[in-house]
């Protein structure tokens, strides 16, 4: 396939994905705004005042980056897993599979769709946070780069989940039983310095910790982890998941009989 045609195919998948999540905005863009808004109000504003400082910052300022990242992670993952599985379920994935679009373009298209939703929700939640605190971003490019990498990682994870899924239950099990605990224990609401040594060691195995802390470093300039190490890990996760998803796609897992 010509490079230009590959680009058109990629753009087509991306536009279709954006059209999907904007068409059902009441299910995709509004709920994270409401949920995270409540977190800001209750944990940040009401309870946060009594907590005082965390990591040298007001509690609301400390949790804002983590909550934004939580919304990005959940939505990037949900977008790709539900969209790709829905394509499988309705069999419209066959439209792409019978066409000459290469597997890696299919993968990139769906991942780009997840990244687009991650950024859209991240932007909405960031704007909402301005009602509760004044947000000053220390490192703009690093912040955007971390959102990009995190969205890519979780979009790829959502893609792999959708490949294996046979029912709609299969795409809700991982977010409920894996993703949510990882996010809540990933330093969104607290600094891992509060944990005993063993807890800190366990937390260091949680990939979300690196995402949240690198993002927090981008906004506040403070982090519980080494930024370069965290960026390296994020890129490693992206590459590993990309290769895995591409391998499964080539093998036809969950798609071709």
């Amino acid at each position: 396939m010509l490079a230009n045609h590959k680009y058109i195919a990629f753009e087509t998948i991306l536009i279709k994905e954006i059209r999907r999540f904007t068409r059902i905005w009441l299910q995709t863009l509004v709920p994270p705004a409401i949920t995270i808004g409540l977190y800001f109000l209750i944990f940040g504003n009401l309870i946060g005042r009594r907590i005082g400082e965390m990591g040298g910052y007001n509690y609301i300022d400390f949790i804002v980056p983590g909550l934004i990242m939580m919304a990005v992670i959940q939505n990037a993952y949900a977008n790709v897993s539900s969209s790709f599985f829905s394509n499988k379920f309705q069999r419209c994935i066959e439209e792409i599979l019978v066409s000459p679009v290469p597997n890696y373009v299919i993968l990139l298209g769906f991942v780009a769709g997840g990244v687009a939703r991650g950024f859209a929700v991240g932007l909405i939640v960031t704007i909402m946070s301005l009602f509760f605190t004044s947000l000053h971003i220390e490192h703009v490019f690093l912040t955007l780069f971390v959102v990009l990498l995190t969205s890519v990682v979780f979009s790829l994870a959502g893609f792999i989940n959708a490949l294996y899924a046979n029912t709609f239950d299969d795409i809700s099990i991982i977010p409920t039983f894996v993703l949510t605990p990882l996010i809540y224990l990933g330093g969104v609401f607290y600094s891992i310095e509060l944990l005993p040594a063993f807890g800190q060691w366990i937390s260091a195995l949680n990939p979300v910790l690196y995402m949240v802390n690198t993002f927090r470093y981008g906004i506040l300039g403070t982090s519980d982890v080494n930024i370069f190490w965290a960026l390296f890990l994020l890129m490693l996760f992206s590459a590993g998941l990309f290769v895995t998803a591409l391998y499964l796609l080539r093998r036809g897992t969950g798609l071709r009989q």
Partner: protein
Amino acid sequence: MHNINPQNAISIRNLQKTYANGHQALKGIDLDVQENDFFALLGPNGAGKSTIIGIISTLVRATSGSIQVFGQDVATHVYETKLSLGVVPQEINFSQFEKVGDIVMTQAGYYGLRGALARERTEKYLRKLDLWEKRDNRSRMLSGGMKRRLMIARALVHEPRLLILDEPTAGVDIELRRSMWEFLQELNRNGTTIILTTHYLEEAENLCRNIAIINQGQIVENTSMRKLLGKLARQTLVFDTCEELTLTPDFNDPDIECLRIDSHSFEVSMSTSRDINGLFSVLSGQGILIKAMRNKTNRLEELFLSSLKNQ
């Protein structure tokens, strides 16, 4: 328009498929379909028709064997073979939430078409299939027949040289079915090779020049429609009379069986090798005036059933 070269649109050699559950769907299929042909692939449910189409369109992986599309191997020339192929599946497989126009435009994008060209093709095929007025409707709002036509428009948007239709007129009313036949015939006249699977044997008889019958994963008949119909030994003709019949016509011939149906009609069974002019002479001699005559049996259906029985 496509150049018409005397080459095969499809060449299938020793194609076998055994599914993960152990079911052997194809047991070594050999099949050639010439370019510009209108080809029928018939067979009962579960015979292996959809599996063949699935393998050609890469949705199903062959256990062994090879398929060439216009001389190029499907496994090694993925881009070229997919570009020359349009597939209309048996089951509805587009998003029920997308607009009709968007579905066709999106498919154009998968083939590297966009902008004015994609819009032009989308309009062309939606108009040809009487769906242009529905372009802004959500696809789930379409009737069953419209959904089938939408899948045809979608399969044609990149103007493939080979169009494969898996039971395209299933559940479509007679009037619409005939308009789809005309459209497919026009497409074939313009150079598109068409392979059709259908349960309507009348459809295959009217449209297709060549035919293969598949049963239990094997080709049991592969010939031209003319030759196949030529194998038919007997035919039954139904006559409607102008006036009331007082007696059953007597042809005085052991090869001809005559049966009165009601007061104004009777049927005659005779071998296909004979001409029917003699019948009219006898009937005129007995003072019976004929208003209309038709062939009673679905000729292809008879052959189809006998092919399956003889296997």
